[in-house]
C-alpha cells in the first residue's frame, strides 16, 4: 500500500514528541532521507495484534512523524500507528526502531536523554 509521496521533492516532514506539560511539546523538521528510512521501517512492520499500549499522563508519551498531506505516524512502546484521512493502521515494532530513529532525528538539546526506557 502506498502510504506517502516520499519520491516527491516538495514534501515536508515534521517530527515531534509528546513530552512536556508546562512547555509546548517539541517539534523539529525531519529531512527527506530520514523520512525515507522511517517509511522503509514502517513498510517492514507486521500488524499490531491487540490493544495499543497505555500512555502515562506525565512524561514521555510517544513521538510522531507528520507530512504535509495529512498523514501522521505515532510511535510508542513498540507500536506504530499511521493515521490518515481514510482511517488508521497499527503495526508492531518490537525493537522500537521507528521510534528510536525518529527521536534520534531531533536536533541536539531538543529532547532530554533516556526518553525510551527498557520497559
Amino acid at each position, binding site marked *: 500500500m502506498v502510504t506517502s509521496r516520499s519520491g516527491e521533492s516538495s514534501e515536508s516532514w515534521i517530527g515531534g514528541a509528546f*513530552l*512536556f*506539560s*508546562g*512547555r*509546548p511539546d517539541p517539534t523539529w523538521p525531519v529531512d527527506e532521507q530520514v523520512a525515507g528510512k522511517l517509511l522503509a521501517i514502517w513498510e517492514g512492520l507486521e500488524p499490531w495484534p491487540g490493544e495499543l499500549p497505555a500512555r*502515562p499522563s*506525565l*512524561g514521555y508519551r510517544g513521538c510522531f512523524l507528520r507530512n504535509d498531506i495529512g498523514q501522521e505516524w505515532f510511535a510508542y512502546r513498540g507500536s506504530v500507528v499511521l493515521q490518515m484521512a481514510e482511517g488508521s493502521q497499527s503495526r508492531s515494532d518490537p525493537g522500537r526502531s521507528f521510534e528510536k530513529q525518529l527521536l534520534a532525528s531531533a536536533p541536539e538539546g531538543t529532547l*532530554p536523554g533516556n526518553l525510551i526506557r527498557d520497559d
Partner: protein
Amino acid sequence: MTLRITIDIFSGRPNPVIELSGNEAREALSRLQPARALEEGEPMFPEEPTLGYRGLIVEQVDERMENLPGVFRLVHGDLFGPGFAHKAQDEYFEDFVYGRTGLITRLDLGQDLPQMIRQERDRFKEVRAKYKVKPSAWPKRRVCECGPRYEPTWWNDLGQRQFNNNCYNYATNYRTDTFAQPGLAAGSMYTALTCASVLPAAVADDLIDSPGADNNCPENGHLVALVIWPDVDFHWFRKGRNGRWTHKPGSTAATNRDNSGVIIPDPRTADRGPYTDFCTFMVVRHGHIKIR
C-alpha cells in the same frame, strides 16, 4: 391578621393569589397548625424545582403565629418551611381551597383552570413520591469550598481549549489559549526549569507561595502545587472542591489520575513520572492573578 395564599403552579404567568384577613385568616391558620413531624420514608418536597403545581405558599403578612414560619408551603396536607416539615392539623386544607365552593371560586379563573389545578395537584403527588424524607445526618462539611470544580469535559474539547491551555492554565483555572508560562505576563518569566526559578515567576503572576499549606485549603482562593522535571519542564496540580487533586498534562486531557492511574489525595505522594521535585503549594486568589 392577613394571610396571602399563592397557588404556586405557573412559570411564566403570575400565580393566582388569594388574600384572607381577620377571622378568616385566623381560622385558616388554626387549620394549618403543625401536627407531627414528617418521618423517614414519607414524601418530601422535591429538592430541585419542578414545573407545574408546587403547592400553596402561605405568607403571614402582618401578625405572625410563632409556631409556623412566616412563609411556608402546604402540599397534600404537609407543611414545609426552613428546617420545618410537618403534617398540618387539617390535611384537607387544599380541598377547602380547591373545592367547587372553595376559596378558588373567589378568583376569576374561568371554568377550566380550577379543574386543571386539581389535576396538577394529583400529578404532583407522583413527583413527590420520588423524594422521601432522608435520615438526619450531620451537616456535610465542604472540603474546599473555594476550590474549582472538576469539569474535565469543558477543558477536554479536543480543540482550542484543550490544545492551547496547559497545566498552568488548568491549575489556575484561567484560560488564555496561549499555553501560559509562569512569569510571562509580569515580564519575569522563569529562566531555568528549577523550583528556584519557576516559583518566583509564579509569584510575579500574583500566585501566593504557601509552603506551609500542607495540603490544606485556603479560606480564599484555591490551592495549587508546583512540581519540576529537573531542567526539563514544570507541572502544576490543582486542588478541587472535593479535596482531590487534578491536573492537565500539557495539551492532553485534564485528569484526576496520576501516572499510576490512581486518584490524587496529595500531589506530594502521587506518581508524577519524571516530575520528581515537589517545589511548593501556592494559593490562587480568584481574580487576582494574571497569566499569559
